[in-house]
C-alpha cells in the first residue's frame, strides 16, 4: 500500500517534469525549468495552462483602419431650356445640356451642347419663293467649351429666415455650331446667375452670345446669336 502510493506519486512527478519538457523540446525555447514538484502540487501543474506565456504580449494586433473617402462634389451636370435668336432666322426654343467642373471656388470649366430649329427668314416669308434651306439644314446644334469666373459670389435672402448661396459669373469659350449643313467655329461668351436652393442643386439663368462667320446668303458676315436660358443642375 505504502509502496504503491509512493510509486503513483513518483509517476505523477515524472509526468509533470517530462511532459512540459517535451513541449520545451518542440519549441526549443529557454523557458524556466519546471520544478520537480511534490505530489500535491504536481497534479495542479498538469492541469495548469502553459506557464510560459508572458504576462505582457508585445505583439499588438495592427488595427485595420478603413478611411472613408471624402465625397468630392466638383462636377455639375444639368439641362436647360431657353430661347435662341438666330440672326435672320427667327428665335426659337433651345434645349441643352451642361457639364461643369469646378476647379477652384472662383473658376470652372463648362461644356454645353444645345439644339434648336431655325425658323424662316423675312425674305422667305415675303417673297414666297423657294426656301433658302431645307428642313434638315435648319437644325442648329452647337457645342461650347468655356471657362467661367464666379465674379460676384454671394447669398440671396428670401424672406427673413432663408439664405441661399448664389454667384454671378462671367463665361467665355470656343466651340462649333452646325447650321445649314456646315460646322462653324464659334466664339461664345456671356454671363449667368446661379442660385443653390440646396447644397447639391443649382438653378441657372444664363445669357450667351454665339458669334461666328457665315456666308450662307452670298456674302460672308459675322452673326451674333443671342441665347437666354434657364437651367437646373446637380452637383456630384
Amino acid at each position, binding site marked *: 500500500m505504502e509502496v504503491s502510493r509512493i510509486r503513483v506519486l513518483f509517476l505523477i512527478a515524472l509526468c509533470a517534469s517530462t511532459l512540459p519538457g517535451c513541449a520545451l523540446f518542440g519549441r526549443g525555447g529557454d523557458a524556466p525549468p519546471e520544478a520537480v514538484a511534490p505530489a500535491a502540487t504536481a497534479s495542479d501543474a498538469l492541469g495548469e495552462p502553459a506557464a510560459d506565456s508572458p504576462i505582457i504580449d508585445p505583439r499588438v494586433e495592427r488595427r485595420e483602419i478603413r478611411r472613408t473617402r471624402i465625397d*468630392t462634389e466638383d462636377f455639375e451636370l444639368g439641362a436647360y431650356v431657353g430661347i435662341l435668336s438666330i440672326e435672320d432666322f427667327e428665335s426659337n426654343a433651345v434645349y441643352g445640356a451642361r457639364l461643369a467642373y*469646378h476647379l477652384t471656388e472662383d473658376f470652372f470649366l463648362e461644356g454645353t451642347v444645345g439644339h434648336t430649329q431655325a425658323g424662316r427668314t423675312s425674305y422667305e416669308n415675303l417673297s414666297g419663293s423657294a426656301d433658302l434651306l431645307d428642313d434638315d439644314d435648319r437644325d442648329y446644334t452647337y457645342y461650347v467649351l468655356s471657362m467661367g469666373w464666379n465674379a460676384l459670389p454671394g447669398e440671396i435672402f428670401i424672406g427673413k429666415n432663408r439664405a441661399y448661396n448664389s454667384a454671378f459669373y462671367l463665361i467665355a469659350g470656343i466651340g462649333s455650331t452646325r447650321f445649314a449643313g456646315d460646322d462653324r*467655329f464659334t466664339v461664345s461668351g456671356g454671363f449667368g446667375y446661379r442660385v443653390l436652393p440646396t447644397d447639391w442643386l443649382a438653378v441657372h439663368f444664363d445669357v450667351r452670345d454665339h458669334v461666328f462667320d457665315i456666308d450662307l446668303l452670298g456674302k460672308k458676315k459675322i452673326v451674333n446669336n443671342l441665347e437666354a436660358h434657364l437651367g437646373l443642375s446637380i452637383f456630384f
Partner: protein
Amino acid sequence: MSRPLSLLVLLVLLFTASAQADDEPRKILIADPFIELHTGPGRGYPVFHVVERGREVYIIKRRTDWFQIRTDRGVEGWAPREQMIATLEPTGEPLDLEEPARENYMSRRWQGGVMAGDFGGASLVSAFGGYAFSDNLSIELTVNHILGEFSNGYSATLGLMHVFVPEWRISPYFTLGTGVIYTKPKSTLVQVEDRDDQIGYVGGGLQFYLTRRFMLRSEYRNNVIFTSRDDNEEVDEWKYLGFAFFF
C-alpha cells in the same frame, strides 16, 4: 417570389447596404485652436460658427477647396482647405487630403485639357488626355475639330510626349505620333468629296505649371497627311493656348 426577382431584391439590398457604408462621413479631430465655419463654400460667405480644438467633427463632402463639416451638435458649415490641413485623423495622424498640389506635381499620372489654335489656316478646337508612364514620358490621345472656311474636319491622334525637365515650372516637350483625319468640304462648294486620311506628326511645345493641379500649354505640330493623291500634304498646326489639369 420567383428566383430572378429575389436575386434582384438581394442585389438592390446589397447595393443600398454598400452605399450606406460609403455614406458614413469621415470623422476628424480639430487640432487648430479653432476652425471657422462659413455658410457656403467660398471666402465671401460669412462665418457663423466656430469649432474649438479637440472636438470631433465629420466631413460630409468637399467642393473645390472647401469642406462641409458637421459638428457633434449637428451644426453644418464649410471650412477652407488651409484649416483642414491642420486637422487630425481620430488616430492622431494629420489628415491626408490626397491633394494634387505642387508637392505632388511630379507624381501626376493622368492629364486632360482643352486647347485652341490654328490648323493650316482653319480654326482648331482640341481636347486631349494623357497618361504618364514615367516623369518624362507619356502617351497622349488628342481629338481635334478643324473648322475652316472651305472645309471642316476631325482628327484623332495618338502619340508619345517627352517632357524634357518635368520638375521645372516651365518645361519644353517633344511629341510624335500618328492618327486619322477626316475632311469634309463645305456644302457651299461645288466639288464635294469627303476624305479619310492617315496623318503623322512631329512637334513640340511648352508646358507651364500654373497652380495646384493646373497647367497651361502651348504647342506646335508639323502634320503630314498621307493623301490618296500623288503628293502628301503638310500642315502646320499651332495650338496657341491650352488649359490642362492633372490628377
